[in-house]
């Protein structure tokens, strides 16, 4: 037995007939925190969605092992029950469904041996709300409906804290958070982190990594992880952008042009 929690091997993924991931390899062991950085459109969210089983993302090659088992044939709810959690980059609004009702239903599904009554759940939820300093009234509203950008992100982290996953993937959870919110979110993540948990942070900014120190930093470009390193890699990206690394790693002219287009478009 290894300590590998997640093993992604030569993963190729197509969306609407277009190859987005072109051979991703990544291993995450228990207790590790990984950061994935990369230009817009490089496939970071695609990678996150594939882990959760989102419809429309077709795996054409490779495999994904979670705690030793291939999970690619499992439905999204089965993966969640096994402890995989994704904090969405763009959380979905679900009209008519209150956060508290949604979360209790989810909690009881994920923890069938620890069913909580409405009242017990409310108390448990309140602890998490206090930890993350989220406005309590948020949980009585409909899921993400009318939430501000930052509130949506915090609601994702609240869900993570409530469900207590083994593998948590956060897709740009830091984007759009004010400084205080960033601290609360980081506190929530650091509280979850531990020897049995794997954490993946997808981010554009070193800022988050100052609060949550990753063990590894990976650069995803043009559908592949082109470079991995420690915290210093994040610092270098912050200073230099992606083009230099792309060239260094021998990306094709075409792929580089794509990266530069996107960087250009960003400014």
């Amino acid at each position, binding site marked *: 037995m290894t300590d590998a929690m997640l093993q992604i091997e030569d993963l190729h993924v197509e969306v609407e007939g277009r190859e987005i991931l072109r051979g991703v390899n990544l291993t995450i062991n228990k207790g590790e925190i990984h950061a994935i950085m990369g230009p817009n459109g490089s496939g970071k969210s695609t990678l996150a969605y594939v882990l959760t089983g989102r419809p429309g993302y077709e795996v054409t090659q490779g495999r994904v092992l979670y705690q030793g088992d291939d999970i690619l044939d499992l439905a999204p709810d089965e993966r969640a029950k096994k402890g995989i959690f994704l904090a969405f980059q763009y959380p979905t609004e679900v*009209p008519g469904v209150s956060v508290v009702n949604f979360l209790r239903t989810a909690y009881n599904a994920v923890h069938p041996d620890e069913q909580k009554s409405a009242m017990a759940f409310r108390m448990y939820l309140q602890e998490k709300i206090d930890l993350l300093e989220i406005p309590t009234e948020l949980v009585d509203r409909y899921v993400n409906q009318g939430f501000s950008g930052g509130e949506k992100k915090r609601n994702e982290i609240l869900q993570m804290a409530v469900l207590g996953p083994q593998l948590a993937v956060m897709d740009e959870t830091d984007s759009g958070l004010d400084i205080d919110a960033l601290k609360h979110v980081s506190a929530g993540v650091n509280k979850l982190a531990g020897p049995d948990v794997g954490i993946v942070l997808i981010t554009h900014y070193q800022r988050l990594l100052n609060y949550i120190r990753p063990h590894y930093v990976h650069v995803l470009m043009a559908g592949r992880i082109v470079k991995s390193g420690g915290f210093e890699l994040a610092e270098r990206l912050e200073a230099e952008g992606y083009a230099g690394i792309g060239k260094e790693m021998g990306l094709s002219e075409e792929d580089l042009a794509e990266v530069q287009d996107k960087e250009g478009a960003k400014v």
Partner: protein
Amino acid sequence: MRNFLEQVKDQFTADKLTRESVVKLSDQLDEPGWLVERRLGAFDLFDKLDLPDPKGEEWRYTDVRRFDFDRFEAPVPTSSTPALTDDLVAKGVVVADFNSAARQHQDLLREHFFTEVPVDEHKFTALHGAFLSDGILLYVPPGVEIDVPLEVWRNVEGGGSTFPHTTVVVDEQAVVTFVDRFKSDDYAAASLCASVVEIEARRGATVNYISLQEWGRNVHHFQTQRFTGYRDSTVRSLAVNLGSAFSRAQVESVLKGEGSFSEMLGLYFADSNQHFAQRTLQSHDAEHTTSDLLYKGALKERSRSEYSGLIKVSKGAQGTDAYQANRNIVLSEDAVARSIPQLEIEANEVRCTHGATVAPVEEEHIFYLMSRGIDRVTAQKLVVFGFFGDVLDRIRLGNVRDELAQAIALKVEGEQSLEVAS
């Protein structure tokens, strides 16, 4: 009374819906001559009238031109009157079934049966006039507030027919809640229900009327509900359609008195090959009247629904507020919902909004819920409950609300394998 009805039942053999059956029914109920005449007049009308044309506005998309009446046996007379407390009787509240009203309250009967819904409205109301078999008359005197809901249960046998009639007259400043339940088993043989509901809310009166159609799978249900609101009255109605093979409900609110208000709620959930047709009318005939309509429905499997709603504001009805919304959520690709709003506005000081939507359950929503560990069916349930939430919240009877929530959950879970011919 009971024995009398039981005797009648014994004598009753399986007749079809014929003129002879009308005579026999009236005979056996020992009705006065004028009533026999009235029934026969209605039957002759039934005979003469064509089945409604799906090209006309009222029955648009609902084609019953080949509806076969020979499938059904004539009704077995029943009575389903709610019991009144002594206190209410002392206050002058009257509840009478049609049979006893025919003998003891002839004046009430003449005055209040078929005054708002004429028998000649269409073929099904005419048939109802001929075979009226389970009628109830409720009269609430001025100022009497009945705080416990009055409920009646309607039934029908497999292969049979029933013609329930509800007349509720609520006098000035009086208050009442009335629940009509239509419920039976799932039968192999087709059954027919043609029901008429007439509700009159006099000055300042408040009436809550709930119709719960939860028939077994092979019942064909035709219903006309008409509410008449006089000055400053409030009528709240809820029309629920969950059962039957085919149901057509026509729900009309006629605001005749200044300052009158009508809330019209509808909730339906069709599955397998159920077909629901609904027609509503918000008729504003006086100044400063308000109507607020919200009909919401879910469709599953190969079911169909049609909703057509007319807001009509007559010339003198200045200061009218009329709202109409019909929302449909579709859980399968094979289900079809249609929604047609119509406006006829002759006054110029009018606030009026209407909206209709037909939308599938968003796969995006389901995925988000599933990504947190919730299985697909439960996720659908959450979404569908969310959809019905605002209608459910407006239902004032807790027990009805809970029942409906349960029925909705069962509908989402259930895989209807039962196929019935329509």
